[in-house]
């Protein structure tokens, strides 16, 4: 039987929300616009790039960032609506196409609020002013006498006009200069700082939300791809005869990979094209394919990490940051403490594996993808097909999790190449096995730390070395050394007031595609740094919380330049977002004040804590564990975040909860191993992630009230978790675990 339910083109256009994609008016954001060259299906009067208004009063607000669970499709429009004085109940959020006109759409790096908070306020305020100007014109009164309030413009004499009535006239108004706009004061906020529920909440909960694989096009075929098990492998030979005989299979297609660094290109593979997913999977099982070896096909991750660990222990690396004379301080110290730490490769494993629907028609390509970065998808597909970027149209669906995986559009390039070959719409859907085995892996890392303590136990020298294959290797295969930008994530930017300090980097050539994963290098580096501070506290016989304060030292803004270190500060000027040790200590103090730190616990239980600054936010996490009969259980987790100004506190709470549980997966369970260049794990049974039973009964987060500039929220909850748990394990058992995951040492 033929499928009984197919979405019409009109329906899926509605579902994927292209209706108000847009015409650029007013120049509030500059750039090339897809919609400007291809026309638009805008249903309302466009007031600016992000806001249009229908005659019935509906306000359409463009969400240009991708929704992968942070609530960004709600919180940025919430900012616009607030400044615009729009009634939230009459706001419709419309997902943007990939289009440079919107500025960066790369939903990554915990940047959406911090980079667009002011822009969105200006968009709202500009729209409001145009509505006020339209009303003033209609009434023939001075602008000063008109004031927008909750979807109406009011005149001082009591007259009022609804936003809808003013739509056409407002769109004709001159677009105000953003710099000249008056933004609201904090007391005037209606929505900013409030728990506005996610706009997608009802659809998600009733199964109506549209993710990547939920888009269906007429005549669409389904592809499943067998890929080279090791980086750089190519098809040596294959036999697709049996696969072609599987009912429903239409074709077997070689998918060549270009030469050079992996970048966002597809890896080499053999695709089975079929009438449905099941036939494609069955056909794929029937493939016979042999792969050529490569320089990476002997990669063994355990031996590799052993070698890195030996390297960082035994010799000096390239100096990235230096203060005082570490060697002299170590040579004369009363007590020297040293420790090596290591962390494994990790896979992102979002619940929705990578997927893309692509169709090539005429001279253009159109894609539907759960992408964190539609402009990167656009660029990568254009390059792969030899098209102008303007001829590649990328629709962003909801993402079933991203965590950094879906900002690498290799899977969309696969779909585009196959669509060009097949001449029909093609869905490329990755299996979980594909996802686990062909990720852009979170880098493994080996670290070595050595410190000198004086007679009071104060740290007088801090030497930190690491070897970690860098993300840069994915784009340039000659890159094998962490630079200051990489080391800015915790390892090189430690805020310690020790007189002698040196940070070094060793080469670590990559043997797989290395990519960023939620909080990136902060994961290994916070584990090493925050574990070692705990070790020093215990070596000094001092309370770890007190010792952290001593290590951080007096209130100040850190200046890395005199120590030869180019601190990237997550892409923001240090003058705008200083590294403020007072805020760092404040999250620590707030944490300790909110938990029974120092309480007398039964044998086998303990508290541990860790403090980090990442993505411009300050976070402290404490964990309470029990260890009994070899079984480790995390009983409580408490987090404190200072993220500056917060738009939607409930979503920040949710990100902290989720971030801490993501960190729990890292601490307890996550490990990807390579053998013979190939990943050994294949699904959630051998790459486990935290389940409900791993989740502490008590998990709380506290948001520090702040009027500082907004900082990141999606990632900063992750880094302190693993060291807090390892430190708690030490407190509970006296056993110091210096490698992740902890499941190597305990049943979890």
């Amino acid at each position, binding site marked *: 039987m033929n499928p009984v339910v197919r979405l019409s083109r009109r329906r899926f256009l509605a579902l994927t929300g292209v209706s108000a994609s847009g015409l650029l008016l007013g120049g509030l954001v500059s750039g090339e616009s897809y919609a400007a060259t291809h026309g638009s299906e805008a249903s309302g009067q466009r007031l600016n790039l992000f806001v249009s208004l229908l005659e019935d009063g509906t306000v359409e607000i463009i969400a240009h960032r991708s929704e992968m669970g942070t609530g960004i499709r709600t919180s940025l429009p919430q900012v616009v609506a607030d400044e615009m004085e729009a009634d939230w109940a009459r706001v419709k959020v419309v997902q943007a196409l990939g289009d440079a006109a919107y500025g960066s759409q790369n939903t990554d790096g915990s940047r959406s609020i911090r980079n667009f908070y002011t822009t969105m306020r200006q968009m709202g305020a500009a729209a409001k002013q145009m509505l006020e100007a339209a009303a003033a014109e209609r009434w023939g009164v001075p602008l000063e006498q008109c004031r927008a309030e909750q979807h109406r413009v009011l005149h001082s004499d009591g007259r009022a006009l609804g936003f809808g009535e003013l739509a056409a006239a407002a769109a004709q108004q001159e677009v105000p200069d953003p710099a000249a706009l008056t933004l609201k004061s904090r007391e005037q906020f209606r929505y900013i700082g409030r728990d506005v529920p996610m706009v997608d909440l009802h659809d998600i*909960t009733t199964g109506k939300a549209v993710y990547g694989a939920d888009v269906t096009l007429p005549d669409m075929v389904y592809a499943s791809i067998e890929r080279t098990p090791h980086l750089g492998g190519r098809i040596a030979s294959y036999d697709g005869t049996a696969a072609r005989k599987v009912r429903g299979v239409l074709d077997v297609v070689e998918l060549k990979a270009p030469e050079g660094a992996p970048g966002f290109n597809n890896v080499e593979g053999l695709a089975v094209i079929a009438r449905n*997913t099941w036939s494609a999977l069955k056909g794929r099982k029937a493939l016979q394919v042999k792969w050529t070896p490569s320089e990476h096909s002997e990669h063994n991750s355990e031996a590799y990490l052993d070698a890195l660990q030996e390297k960082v222990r035994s010799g000096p690396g390239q100096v990235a940051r230096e203060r005082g004379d570490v060697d002299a301080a170590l040579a004369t110290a009363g007590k020297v403490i040293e420790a090596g730490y290591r962390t494994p490769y990790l896979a992102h494993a979002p619940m929705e594996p990578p997927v893309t629907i692509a169709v090539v028609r005429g001279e253009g390509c159109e894609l539907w993808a759960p992408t964190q970065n539609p402009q990167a998808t656009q660029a990568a597909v254009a390059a792969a097909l030899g098209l102008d970027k303007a001829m590649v149209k990328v629709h962003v669906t909801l993402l079933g999790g991203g965590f950094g995986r879906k900002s690498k559009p290799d899977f969309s390039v696969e779909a585009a190449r196959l669509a060009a070959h097949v001449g029909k719409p093609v869905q490329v859907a990755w299996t979980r096995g594909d996802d686990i085995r062909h990720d852009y892996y979170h880098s493994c890392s080996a670290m070595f730390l050595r410190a000198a303590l004086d007679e009071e136990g104060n740290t007088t020298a801090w030497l930190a070395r690491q070897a970690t294959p860098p993300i840069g290797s994915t784009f340039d295969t000659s890159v094998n050394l962490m630079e200051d930008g990489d080391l800015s994530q915790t390892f090189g930017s430690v805020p310690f007031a020790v007189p002698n300090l040196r940070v070094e980097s060793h080469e670590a050539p990559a043997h797989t595609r290395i990519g960023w994963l939620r909080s990136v290098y902060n994961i290994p580096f916070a584990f090493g740094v925050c574990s070692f501070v705990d070790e020093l506290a215990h070596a000094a016989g001092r309370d770890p919380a007190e010792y952290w304060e001593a290590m951080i030292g007096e209130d100040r803004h850190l200046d890395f330049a005199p120590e030869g270190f180019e601190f990237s500060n997550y892409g923001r000027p240090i003058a705008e977002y200083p590294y403020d040790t007072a805020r760092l200590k404040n999250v620590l103090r707030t944490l300790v004040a909110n938990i029974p730190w120092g309480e007398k616990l039964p044998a086998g239980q303990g508290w541990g804590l860790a403090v980090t600054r990442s993505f411009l936010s300050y976070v402290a996490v404490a964990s309470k564990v029990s260890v009994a009969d070899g079984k480790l259980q995390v009983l409580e987790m408490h987090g404190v975040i200072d993220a500056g100004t917060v738009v939607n506190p409930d979503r920040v709470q949710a990100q902290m909860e989720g971030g801490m549980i993501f960190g729990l997966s890292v601490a307890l369970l996550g490990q990807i191993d390579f053998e013979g260049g190939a990943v050994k794990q294949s699904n959630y049974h051998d790459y486990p992630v935290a389940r*409900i039973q791993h989740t502490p009964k008590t998990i709380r987060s506290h948001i520090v009230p702040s009027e500082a500039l907004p900082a990141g929220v999606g990632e900063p909850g992750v880094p302190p978790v693993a060291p807090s748990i390892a430190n708690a394990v030490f407190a509970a058992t006296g056993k110091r675990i210096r490698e992740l995951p902890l499941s190597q040492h305990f049943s979890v």
Partner: protein
Amino acid sequence: MTSFTLNGAAVEVEVPEGMPLLWVLRDELGLVGTKYGCGIAQCGACTVLFNGQAMRSCQLPISAVAGAEVLTIEGLGTPDDPHPVQQAWIDEQVAQCGYCQSGQVMQAAWFLSNNTDPSDAEIDAAMAGNLCRCGTYPRIRQAVRRAAEMLAAPVQTFDPLTDSGEG
């Protein structure tokens, strides 16, 4: 040709032998609320009610579905008239990315159809097979408790196969 009842309506499909119900729902019937997550019953994203019991639809070959009654997320409730479990999920603002939540909701709906006064341990045991990579577990626990209260209220009754919204 295989006949079964889907969200209260009779359906017939003709698909390759062995095709799991998950792909019948998604590719053949266009009911995409049920999600693929692992294909080996490790994540629960594809959970449906099969003859009243929560099952992983990726493990149900079409041959096993003949004559059965299947309820999917689309049949449980609607945005205008959500099932109590869905209402509890909305009230607690459980979802982050939301991809796993169809399966979570179906699992909880089945669990609570048998137990309206669950202990914390029973909730964890019942939901142990449903992964959420976003880490919404604390809110899932709260939502299950809230739904249990709603379902335990005397005016509420719940039979997953008759109380199935608009189907």
